[in-house]
């Protein structure tokens, strides 16, 4: 047949499209931001994976990167940003502080952002190496690919 054809299912095509167009919203609060910058820039180059676009409007973003320490005072801001994002959305906890509060086990710091919002991928390290981040984001892509894509989104809580 001229031109050829492929067969696929709707869901896997949708997943393929989504995983290579993850627009990110970087929520950067602390030193991990340095590693984020090196990953996002030309040396490690997130753009190779279709994540080059940073959308500083939560409404246009698919992936929330929480990079750095989240204090109790900041928690409502993060929650609002998450709530403003449209479905489907994914959250990445970047670095020990976002995971668990890290070394800041004290009165001011939220002990892990999963106490406020649901998290899809955790990246350990203080700060994580760029290779770790790429690995984690590829894992997120796999997750996006495998996700059941219903027409109507059952809201994550």
């Amino acid at each position: 047949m001229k031109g050829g054809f492929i067969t696929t299912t709707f869901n896997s095509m949708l997943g393929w499209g989504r995983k290579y167009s993850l627009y990110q919203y970087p929520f950067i609060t602390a030193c991990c931001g340095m590693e984020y910058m090196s990953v996002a820039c030309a040396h490690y180059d997130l753009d190779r994976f279709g994540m080059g676009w940073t959308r500083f409007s939560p409404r246009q973003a698919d992936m929330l990167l929480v990079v750095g320490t989240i204090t109790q005072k900041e928690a409502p801001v993060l929650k609002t940003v998450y709530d403003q994002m449209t479905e489907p959305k994914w959250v990445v906890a970047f670095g020990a502080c976002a995971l668990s509060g890290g070394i800041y086990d004290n009165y001011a710091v939220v002990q892990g952002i999963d106490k406020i919002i649901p998290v899809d991928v955790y990246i350990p390290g203080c700060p994580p190496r760029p290779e770790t981040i790429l690995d984690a984001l590829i894992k997120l892509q796999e997750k996006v690919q495998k996700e059941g894509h219903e027409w109507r989104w059952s809201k994550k809580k």
Partner: protein
Amino acid sequence: MEQEKVIKDLKNKFSDKIKEISTQFGEKIVVFEKDSLLDVFRFLKDKPYDFAMLLDLTCVDYKGQQNRFEMVYHLFSLSSNLRLRLKTRLPEKEPSIESLTGEWKNANWLEREVYDMFGIQFSGHPYLKRLFMYDGFEGHPLRKDYPLRKRQPKIPMRK
């Protein structure tokens, strides 16, 4: 201006208010009576001493000692390149001290921080509100008797 001269003049002028003068790591430490705060600082800020810069203002909690809180002030003189550390003690019950906001603008936030973390009242401060912690936060977290594991989240936590 030599450091010795500053110390000597300070001693002569406030002989009854200066409790102790010592040296640590080559820096002079002056311990003064709390009620003479404004007089001492105005004296040092004016020429010829010219300590025009308030480097830092903070507090230390010595729990269990008689006068529990110690206020620490760091001054710097730009014209003579001198530093001076001044200290005074406050009681545990209702600790309060005069505000330095009239002399140095930057004392405003420094004093708000000390109020936030230690609960020291600064009389004459124009806007004594918490600086770091949020409204509704109870207690003062850098006091030694603030429970180590006490958490006061601003929004409800999941699970």
